[in-house]
């Protein structure tokens, strides 16, 4: 295999592995799966309500899981994501995402908040939140 192709393949596999965050929602949410476009729209503030009309409540957490999630599904770095939400908040259009400090806090918040969506590093850390597949 050509060295450039080999490097590209390795990087692609690495990106897939890095995008292994588990997306979670409130257990009352009927969704069994979400598309990458759905996540992009939700986390970019363009999709405000679930199909049943409930308000989407976005949760994020700091650190490498956040960076990896943003890169895989939102197409932004942490700094770009923060700047884009400052734009949304200071134009009054939506509430800023809820910040959670770690997997446990994220899982607890999402499990307790109707309409919430978040992510954890591993399905085992989902706690009482509902895990949804990303297609």
């Amino acid at each position, binding site marked *: 295999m050509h060295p450039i192709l080999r490097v590209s393949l390795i990087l692609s596999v690495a990106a897939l592995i890095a995008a292994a965050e588990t997306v979670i929602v409130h257990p009352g949410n009927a969704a069994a799966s979400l598309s990458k476009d759905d996540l992009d729209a939700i986390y970019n503030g363009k999709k405000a309500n679930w199909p049943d009309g*409930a308000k989407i409540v976005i949760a994020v957490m700091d650190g490498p899981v956040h960076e990896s999630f943003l890169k895989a599904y939102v197409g932004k*770095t942490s*700094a770009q994501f923060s700047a*884009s939400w*400052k734009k949304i908040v*200071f134009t*009054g259009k939506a509430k800023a995402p809820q*910040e959670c400090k770690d997997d446990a806090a994220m899982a607890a918040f999402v499990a307790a908040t109707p309409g919430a969506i978040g992510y954890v590093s591993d399905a085992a850390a989902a706690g009482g939140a509902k895990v949804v597949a990303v297609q």
Partner: protein
Amino acid sequence: MRLITIVPTLLVAASAAQAVEFHGVEISGFASLGYVNSSSNEYLAEGSESGSWQMNNVGLNFGYQATDRLRFAAQIYASNLGNAGEDAQYEDDFLAPTYSWKNGGVGLDLLFAQYTVADEFGIRLGRVKQPFGLYNEVRDIDAVRGSATLPQAVYDDRSREYDFAVNGGSIFGSIGAGKAGSFDYQVFGGTIDVSLNGSVANQYVTPEFTLEEVTVGSIYGGQLIWNAPIDGLRFGFSMRQTRDRDAKVAWNSDLVVASGVVPIPYSYSLPDESMEASTDTDNYMLSVEFTYDSFLFQAEYLRTDMTQSYSTSKLTLVADPAFLDEQSYELTDDRSISEGWYVMASYRPVEQIELGGFGSFYTADIANRSTKNWNDYQNDFALFARVDTNVEGLMFKVEGHVVRGTALLDVPDKQAGYLASEPTADENWHYIVVKAAYSF
């Protein structure tokens, strides 16, 4: 006094890690403290030639999600951006007094009710920001950009008073387009109140006239953003039309005397009639943005088509013939088309540091782009650095500019008008800006 005001604000805000929620009301805010030093032309702030701290702002934002689809939002704002004028005789606040805490005023940037029918359609009623270009709605927020100032060729701070928000409403939505990406749109309309001492009024000031009244009939426009199917790439088109911006002016005999052009003792008579100038303006903006990893590239082009008509075709000044011949103005309807554009790039070598630069270019008359008259163009080259500290939301910025031309200075800076003395502005100049900013 200004330091006393801004420092506690920053300290109180710094104690909050993120937006505060109180009985369901979300509270967030921003503040900045800036220093500007201009080699000449007193740019951006009064006294900037010897260094000025009059470059500050503070805003508080309130949001309340009443139901799944109904939201209320408000933002109050105060700033102090000094005086763009070089001559104290024409001293005016660079921004409207209603936004200047120097005059004890706090402005209402937005106050609206928002109902989201679907992702594709929503409506806002009240005082709403004007979507125009990549930055107009957030032009005061340091957290959303690396630079300390926005390219003035496109985001002229003198025009903030009527470029920023309208009392009216807007509709908005985001529409998916499959493999073609998605589209975001906003359409707005309304009107504004104009302060006689504000930045808009300042643009009418000449040694000969006193502004008596400014009113605006309507402002309406819209924005369409295409999020291309390439990650990080988007294109935008914005337009805005301002109709019936009417200014009523009268001869200013005090300034004629103060100008020193007419010798004393002398006698003179001035027309006692007022004159009305009516202005219609069309703005069009093209935008492109591309982000790739930690790189950011942006470019925008603004075209402004302005038509002005007058209620009087001729004004005459009669002085003692021993000292000054009869002088008169011939006034005819005129149309001017100006343009401004910029290219900006930045890079974050590490998470907490952003380095970048931009070139900003303004031409007062596109029919005369090759003009050698430096009052008719302004080219600005800037380099900037932003450092985000370990205190979340707290950042520092430093920015240096090299400028040629003075087209974006106010009329008094250029001493326009036939009664004026020689222009005092300098063609080649530079300035630096240092800022501390916080948001939560």
